[in-house]
Protein backbone atom coordinates (compact mmCIF):
# COMPACT_ATOMS: atom_id res chain seq x y z
CA UNK A 1 0.00 0.00 0.00
CA UNK A 2 1.65 3.24 -1.09
CA UNK A 3 1.20 6.66 0.43
CA UNK A 4 -1.45 7.81 -2.03
CA UNK A 5 -3.55 4.74 -1.38
CA UNK A 6 -3.31 5.44 2.34
CA UNK A 7 -4.43 9.03 1.78
CA UNK A 8 -7.48 7.89 -0.22
CA UNK A 9 -8.21 5.28 2.44
CA UNK A 10 -8.01 7.92 5.18
CA UNK A 11 -10.20 10.30 3.19
CA UNK A 12 -12.91 7.70 2.74
CA UNK A 13 -12.91 6.59 6.37
CA UNK A 14 -12.74 10.21 7.53
CA UNK A 15 -15.68 11.30 5.37
CA UNK A 16 -17.75 8.42 6.75
CA UNK A 17 -16.88 9.21 10.36
CA UNK A 18 -17.60 12.90 9.78
CA UNK A 19 -21.04 12.14 8.42
CA UNK A 20 -21.79 9.80 11.35
CA UNK A 21 -20.95 12.61 13.75
CA UNK A 22 -22.85 15.29 11.86
CA UNK A 23 -25.90 13.07 11.36
CA UNK A 24 -25.96 12.09 15.04
CA UNK A 25 -25.74 15.74 16.09
CA UNK A 26 -28.40 17.06 13.73
CA UNK A 27 -30.61 14.02 14.34
CA UNK A 28 -30.60 14.53 18.11
CA UNK A 29 -31.21 18.23 17.60
CA UNK A 30 -34.18 17.66 15.28
CA UNK A 31 -35.65 15.01 17.59
CA UNK A 32 -35.45 17.34 20.58
CA UNK A 33 -36.87 20.26 18.58
CA UNK A 34 -39.83 18.18 17.35
CA UNK A 35 -40.55 16.95 20.84
CA UNK A 36 -40.43 20.54 22.04
CA UNK A 37 -42.80 21.68 19.30
CA UNK A 38 -45.19 18.79 20.03
CA UNK A 39 -45.29 19.69 23.72
CA UNK A 40 -45.52 23.43 23.17
CA UNK A 41 -46.91 24.23 19.69
CA UNK A 42 -47.08 27.95 20.59
CA UNK A 43 -43.29 28.11 20.77
CA UNK A 44 -42.82 26.47 17.34
CA UNK A 45 -41.39 29.62 15.76
CA UNK A 46 -38.80 30.23 18.48
CA UNK A 47 -37.80 26.58 18.60
CA UNK A 48 -37.40 26.45 14.82
CA UNK A 49 -35.17 29.52 14.82
CA UNK A 50 -32.97 28.17 17.60
CA UNK A 51 -32.84 24.80 15.84
CA UNK A 52 -31.61 26.32 12.58
CA UNK A 53 -28.84 28.22 14.38
CA UNK A 54 -27.68 25.10 16.23
CA UNK A 55 -27.89 23.05 13.02
CA UNK A 56 -25.75 25.67 11.29
CA UNK A 57 -23.11 25.44 14.00
CA UNK A 58 -23.02 21.63 13.88
CA UNK A 59 -22.87 21.75 10.11
CA UNK A 60 -19.97 24.21 10.23
CA UNK A 61 -17.87 21.87 12.35
CA UNK A 62 -18.80 18.95 10.08
CA UNK A 63 -17.61 20.93 7.08
CA UNK A 64 -14.25 21.63 8.73
CA UNK A 65 -13.70 17.87 8.93
CA UNK A 66 -15.03 17.28 5.39
CA UNK A 67 -12.61 19.84 3.95
CA UNK A 68 -9.76 17.98 5.63
CA UNK A 69 -10.90 14.75 3.97
CA UNK A 70 -11.28 16.46 0.58
CA UNK A 71 -7.74 17.81 0.88
CA UNK A 72 -6.53 14.31 1.73
CA UNK A 73 -8.21 12.93 -1.38
CA UNK A 74 -7.13 15.55 -3.92
CA UNK A 75 -3.68 16.56 -2.67
Amino acid at each position, binding site marked *: MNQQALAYFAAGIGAGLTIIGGAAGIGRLAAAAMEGIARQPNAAGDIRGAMIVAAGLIEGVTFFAL*IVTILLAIK
Partner: protein
Amino acid sequence: MKALLLLLQAPAEHAAEHAAGAEHAAEGAAHGGGPAEVLMHHVTDRVLYTIPVGPYHLLITKHLVFFVLAAVVVLIAARLAIRSYREGGVPTGIGAAVESFVLFIRDDIAEANIGHDGLKFVPLLCSFFFFILFAALLGLLPFSATSTGNIAVTLGLAIVSFLAMQYAGISKYGLWGHLKNLVPPGLPVFLLPIMIPVEILSVFTKPFALMVRLFANMLAGHMVITALLMLIPLMAAINAAFGWAVVPVSLGLALFIMVLELLVALIQAYIFTLLTAIFIGMFAHPAH
Protein backbone atom coordinates in the same frame (compact mmCIF):
# COMPACT_ATOMS: atom_id res chain seq x y z
CA MET B 1 -0.18 20.65 -3.02
CA LYS B 2 -0.95 22.33 -6.34
CA ALA B 3 -4.57 21.28 -6.05
CA LEU B 4 -4.70 22.91 -2.61
CA LEU B 5 -3.30 26.10 -4.11
CA LEU B 6 -5.90 25.97 -6.85
CA LEU B 7 -8.63 25.45 -4.28
CA LEU B 8 -7.54 28.39 -2.15
CA GLN B 9 -6.71 30.63 -5.08
CA ALA B 10 -7.35 34.33 -4.56
CA PRO B 11 -9.11 36.08 -7.45
CA ALA B 12 -6.32 38.62 -7.91
CA GLU B 13 -3.22 36.48 -7.65
CA HIS B 14 0.02 36.90 -9.53
CA ALA B 15 0.07 35.64 -13.08
CA ALA B 16 3.01 33.28 -12.58
CA GLU B 17 1.15 31.12 -10.11
CA HIS B 18 -1.83 31.03 -12.42
CA ALA B 19 0.40 29.82 -15.21
CA ALA B 20 1.49 26.98 -12.91
CA GLY B 21 -2.17 26.22 -12.18
CA ALA B 22 -3.02 26.22 -15.89
CA GLU B 23 -0.15 23.81 -16.58
CA HIS B 24 -1.48 21.55 -13.88
CA ALA B 25 -4.96 21.61 -15.42
CA ALA B 26 -3.46 20.88 -18.84
CA GLU B 27 -1.57 17.95 -17.31
CA GLY B 28 -4.85 16.60 -15.93
CA ALA B 29 -6.47 16.91 -19.36
CA ALA B 30 -3.50 15.22 -21.01
CA HIS B 31 -3.84 12.25 -18.69
CA GLY B 32 -7.47 11.89 -19.77
CA GLY B 33 -8.69 13.82 -16.72
CA GLY B 34 -9.16 11.57 -13.72
CA PRO B 35 -12.31 12.04 -11.61
CA ALA B 36 -10.49 14.29 -9.15
CA GLU B 37 -9.22 16.56 -11.96
CA VAL B 38 -12.70 16.91 -13.47
CA LEU B 39 -14.15 17.71 -10.04
CA MET B 40 -11.51 20.31 -9.31
CA HIS B 41 -11.83 21.82 -12.78
CA HIS B 42 -15.54 22.30 -12.15
CA VAL B 43 -15.20 24.10 -8.82
CA THR B 44 -11.95 26.06 -9.17
CA ASP B 45 -11.49 29.52 -10.58
CA ARG B 46 -10.38 30.18 -14.16
CA VAL B 47 -8.67 33.20 -15.68
CA LEU B 48 -10.67 34.66 -18.55
CA TYR B 49 -8.72 37.83 -19.30
CA THR B 50 -5.60 39.56 -17.97
CA ILE B 51 -5.21 43.34 -17.66
CA PRO B 52 -1.61 44.43 -17.02
CA VAL B 53 -1.41 47.17 -14.36
CA GLY B 54 2.22 48.22 -14.01
CA PRO B 55 4.25 45.27 -12.69
CA TYR B 56 1.11 43.40 -11.62
CA HIS B 57 -1.67 41.74 -13.55
CA LEU B 58 -5.33 42.28 -12.85
CA LEU B 59 -6.92 38.93 -13.58
CA ILE B 60 -10.53 38.79 -14.71
CA THR B 61 -11.52 35.35 -13.48
CA LYS B 62 -14.77 33.46 -13.76
CA HIS B 63 -15.51 33.90 -10.06
CA LEU B 64 -14.80 37.63 -10.29
CA VAL B 65 -17.25 37.99 -13.19
CA PHE B 66 -20.00 36.20 -11.27
CA PHE B 67 -19.13 38.09 -8.07
CA VAL B 68 -19.68 41.41 -9.83
CA LEU B 69 -22.75 40.05 -11.62
CA ALA B 70 -24.35 39.02 -8.31
CA ALA B 71 -23.67 42.48 -6.87
CA VAL B 72 -25.19 44.14 -9.96
CA VAL B 73 -28.27 41.91 -9.78
CA VAL B 74 -28.71 42.82 -6.09
CA LEU B 75 -28.46 46.53 -6.91
CA ILE B 76 -30.95 46.25 -9.78
CA ALA B 77 -33.39 44.26 -7.63
CA ALA B 78 -33.14 46.87 -4.86
CA ARG B 79 -33.70 49.74 -7.35
CA LEU B 80 -36.73 48.00 -8.87
CA ALA B 81 -38.14 47.32 -5.40
CA ILE B 82 -37.74 50.98 -4.39
CA ARG B 83 -39.35 52.14 -7.64
CA SER B 84 -42.42 49.99 -7.04
CA TYR B 85 -42.87 51.87 -3.75
CA ARG B 86 -42.67 55.28 -5.41
CA GLU B 87 -45.38 54.52 -7.92
CA GLY B 88 -48.35 53.44 -5.86
CA GLY B 89 -47.26 53.26 -2.24
CA VAL B 90 -48.26 49.61 -2.25
CA PRO B 91 -45.41 47.44 -3.53
CA THR B 92 -46.18 44.98 -6.28
CA GLY B 93 -44.22 42.23 -7.97
CA ILE B 94 -40.54 42.25 -7.09
CA GLY B 95 -41.08 45.00 -4.54
CA ALA B 96 -43.42 42.82 -2.50
CA ALA B 97 -40.98 39.90 -2.61
CA VAL B 98 -38.02 42.01 -1.52
CA GLU B 99 -40.13 43.74 1.14
CA SER B 100 -41.06 40.47 2.82
CA PHE B 101 -37.38 39.49 3.09
CA VAL B 102 -36.34 42.92 4.33
CA LEU B 103 -39.09 42.96 6.95
CA PHE B 104 -38.05 39.49 8.08
CA ILE B 105 -34.42 40.58 8.38
CA ARG B 106 -35.40 43.73 10.29
CA ASP B 107 -37.85 42.16 12.74
CA ASP B 108 -36.74 38.56 13.19
CA ILE B 109 -32.99 38.85 12.68
CA ALA B 110 -31.81 42.36 13.59
CA GLU B 111 -34.28 43.44 16.29
CA ALA B 112 -34.60 39.98 17.82
CA ASN B 113 -30.84 39.44 18.19
CA ILE B 114 -29.27 42.88 18.50
CA GLY B 115 -32.09 44.87 20.08
CA HIS B 116 -33.32 48.32 19.17
CA ASP B 117 -29.86 49.55 18.22
CA GLY B 118 -29.91 46.73 15.66
CA LEU B 119 -31.79 49.00 13.24
CA LYS B 120 -28.56 50.58 12.02
CA PHE B 121 -27.23 47.14 11.07
CA VAL B 122 -30.26 46.27 8.91
CA PRO B 123 -28.74 47.62 5.64
CA LEU B 124 -25.58 45.56 6.21
CA LEU B 125 -27.53 42.42 7.07
CA CYS B 126 -29.80 42.90 4.02
CA SER B 127 -26.73 43.27 1.80
CA PHE B 128 -25.26 40.04 3.18
CA PHE B 129 -28.54 38.18 2.74
CA PHE B 130 -29.30 39.26 -0.81
CA PHE B 131 -25.73 39.00 -2.04
CA ILE B 132 -25.24 35.46 -0.73
CA LEU B 133 -28.65 34.42 -2.02
CA PHE B 134 -28.13 35.80 -5.53
CA ALA B 135 -24.53 34.56 -5.74
CA ALA B 136 -25.69 31.03 -4.90
CA LEU B 137 -28.66 31.16 -7.27
CA LEU B 138 -26.51 32.51 -10.13
CA GLY B 139 -24.18 29.57 -9.59
CA LEU B 140 -26.99 27.15 -10.43
CA LEU B 141 -27.36 28.51 -13.98
CA PRO B 142 -25.61 26.60 -16.78
CA PHE B 143 -22.02 27.71 -17.60
CA SER B 144 -21.85 29.80 -14.44
CA ALA B 145 -19.84 29.66 -11.23
CA THR B 146 -20.74 30.28 -7.59
CA SER B 147 -18.56 33.16 -6.50
CA THR B 148 -19.19 32.34 -2.82
CA GLY B 149 -17.64 28.94 -3.55
CA ASN B 150 -14.29 30.74 -3.60
CA ILE B 151 -12.72 31.09 -0.17
CA ALA B 152 -11.35 34.54 -1.01
CA VAL B 153 -14.88 35.86 -1.53
CA THR B 154 -16.18 34.39 1.73
CA LEU B 155 -13.06 35.74 3.47
CA GLY B 156 -14.06 39.20 2.26
CA LEU B 157 -17.60 38.75 3.56
CA ALA B 158 -16.26 37.44 6.88
CA ILE B 159 -13.90 40.43 7.25
CA VAL B 160 -16.83 42.83 6.76
CA SER B 161 -18.78 40.85 9.33
CA PHE B 162 -15.79 40.94 11.75
CA LEU B 163 -15.47 44.72 11.36
CA ALA B 164 -19.21 45.13 12.00
CA MET B 165 -18.93 43.09 15.21
CA GLN B 166 -15.99 45.14 16.50
CA TYR B 167 -17.73 48.38 15.45
CA ALA B 168 -20.81 47.39 17.45
CA GLY B 169 -18.74 46.87 20.60
CA ILE B 170 -16.36 49.81 20.21
CA SER B 171 -18.98 52.39 19.24
CA LYS B 172 -21.01 51.52 22.34
CA TYR B 173 -18.39 51.08 25.05
CA GLY B 174 -15.24 52.68 23.65
CA LEU B 175 -12.13 50.72 22.78
CA TRP B 176 -11.03 49.93 26.34
CA GLY B 177 -14.55 49.08 27.51
CA HIS B 178 -15.03 46.82 24.50
CA LEU B 179 -11.80 44.92 25.26
CA LYS B 180 -12.76 44.63 28.94
CA ASN B 181 -16.18 43.27 27.98
CA LEU B 182 -14.58 40.33 26.18
CA VAL B 183 -13.88 38.66 29.53
CA PRO B 184 -16.97 38.00 31.66
CA PRO B 185 -16.92 40.18 34.80
CA GLY B 186 -16.65 38.68 38.27
CA LEU B 187 -14.15 36.09 37.13
CA PRO B 188 -11.58 34.88 39.70
CA VAL B 189 -8.20 36.49 38.99
CA PHE B 190 -6.35 33.16 38.65
CA LEU B 191 -8.57 32.27 35.67
CA LEU B 192 -7.64 35.43 33.74
CA PRO B 193 -4.44 34.02 32.13
CA ILE B 194 -6.57 31.22 30.64
CA MET B 195 -9.67 33.22 29.78
CA ILE B 196 -8.00 36.16 28.04
CA PRO B 197 -6.34 34.06 25.28
CA VAL B 198 -9.48 31.95 24.91
CA GLU B 199 -11.67 35.03 24.47
CA ILE B 200 -9.24 36.65 22.04
CA LEU B 201 -9.23 33.43 20.04
CA SER B 202 -13.03 33.29 20.01
CA VAL B 203 -13.17 36.81 18.54
CA PHE B 204 -11.38 35.47 15.48
CA THR B 205 -12.95 32.02 15.27
CA LYS B 206 -16.41 33.55 14.87
CA PRO B 207 -15.78 35.12 11.43
CA PHE B 208 -13.52 32.20 10.52
CA ALA B 209 -16.39 29.77 11.07
CA LEU B 210 -18.68 32.01 8.99
CA MET B 211 -16.12 31.97 6.19
CA VAL B 212 -15.58 28.20 6.12
CA ARG B 213 -19.27 27.36 6.51
CA LEU B 214 -20.40 29.38 3.50
CA PHE B 215 -17.43 28.32 1.35
CA ALA B 216 -17.82 24.62 2.15
CA ASN B 217 -21.58 24.64 1.62
CA MET B 218 -21.33 26.26 -1.80
CA LEU B 219 -18.41 24.07 -2.84
CA ALA B 220 -19.93 20.83 -1.54
CA GLY B 221 -23.20 21.18 -3.46
CA HIS B 222 -21.42 21.65 -6.79
CA MET B 223 -18.97 18.84 -6.06
CA VAL B 224 -21.83 16.45 -5.30
CA ILE B 225 -23.67 17.37 -8.52
CA THR B 226 -20.49 16.90 -10.58
CA ALA B 227 -19.67 13.62 -8.86
CA LEU B 228 -23.17 12.28 -9.57
CA LEU B 229 -22.99 13.29 -13.24
CA MET B 230 -19.51 11.79 -13.48
CA LEU B 231 -20.92 8.39 -12.60
CA ILE B 232 -22.07 8.16 -16.24
CA PRO B 233 -18.61 8.26 -17.92
CA LEU B 234 -17.13 6.17 -15.10
CA MET B 235 -19.70 3.41 -15.58
CA ALA B 236 -19.61 3.71 -19.37
CA ALA B 237 -15.86 3.10 -19.24
CA ILE B 238 -16.59 -0.34 -17.78
CA ASN B 239 -19.39 -1.27 -20.17
CA ALA B 240 -21.66 0.74 -22.49
CA ALA B 241 -24.78 -0.94 -21.06
CA PHE B 242 -23.78 0.08 -17.52
CA GLY B 243 -23.34 3.62 -18.79
CA TRP B 244 -26.84 3.77 -20.25
CA ALA B 245 -28.33 2.12 -17.16
CA VAL B 246 -26.84 4.70 -14.81
CA VAL B 247 -28.04 7.71 -16.85
CA PRO B 248 -31.56 8.02 -15.34
CA VAL B 249 -30.27 7.35 -11.80
CA SER B 250 -27.49 9.87 -12.14
CA LEU B 251 -29.65 12.56 -13.74
CA GLY B 252 -32.42 12.07 -11.17
CA LEU B 253 -30.07 12.34 -8.22
CA ALA B 254 -28.30 15.36 -9.73
CA LEU B 255 -31.67 17.06 -10.29
CA PHE B 256 -32.63 16.35 -6.68
CA ILE B 257 -29.39 17.90 -5.41
CA MET B 258 -29.99 20.91 -7.69
CA VAL B 259 -33.40 21.46 -6.06
CA LEU B 260 -31.78 20.98 -2.66
CA GLU B 261 -29.24 23.65 -3.63
CA LEU B 262 -32.10 26.15 -4.09
CA LEU B 263 -33.03 25.49 -0.47
CA VAL B 264 -29.39 25.58 0.67
CA ALA B 265 -28.94 28.98 -1.03
CA LEU B 266 -31.78 30.42 1.08
CA ILE B 267 -30.71 28.67 4.29
CA GLN B 268 -27.05 29.68 3.99
CA ALA B 269 -27.98 33.30 3.28
CA TYR B 270 -30.25 33.16 6.35
CA ILE B 271 -27.63 31.50 8.58
CA PHE B 272 -24.82 33.88 7.60
CA THR B 273 -27.08 36.88 8.26
CA LEU B 274 -28.48 35.44 11.49
CA LEU B 275 -25.09 34.45 12.93
CA THR B 276 -23.65 37.87 12.04
CA ALA B 277 -26.58 39.48 13.88
CA ILE B 278 -26.15 37.17 16.89
CA PHE B 279 -22.40 37.89 17.10
CA ILE B 280 -23.02 41.64 16.78
CA GLY B 281 -25.57 41.29 19.57
CA MET B 282 -23.01 39.43 21.71
CA PHE B 283 -20.55 42.31 21.38
CA ALA B 284 -23.23 45.00 21.78
CA HIS B 285 -24.73 43.39 24.89
CA PRO B 286 -21.97 41.49 26.71
CA ALA B 287 -22.65 39.57 29.92
CA HIS B 288 -22.69 41.88 32.94
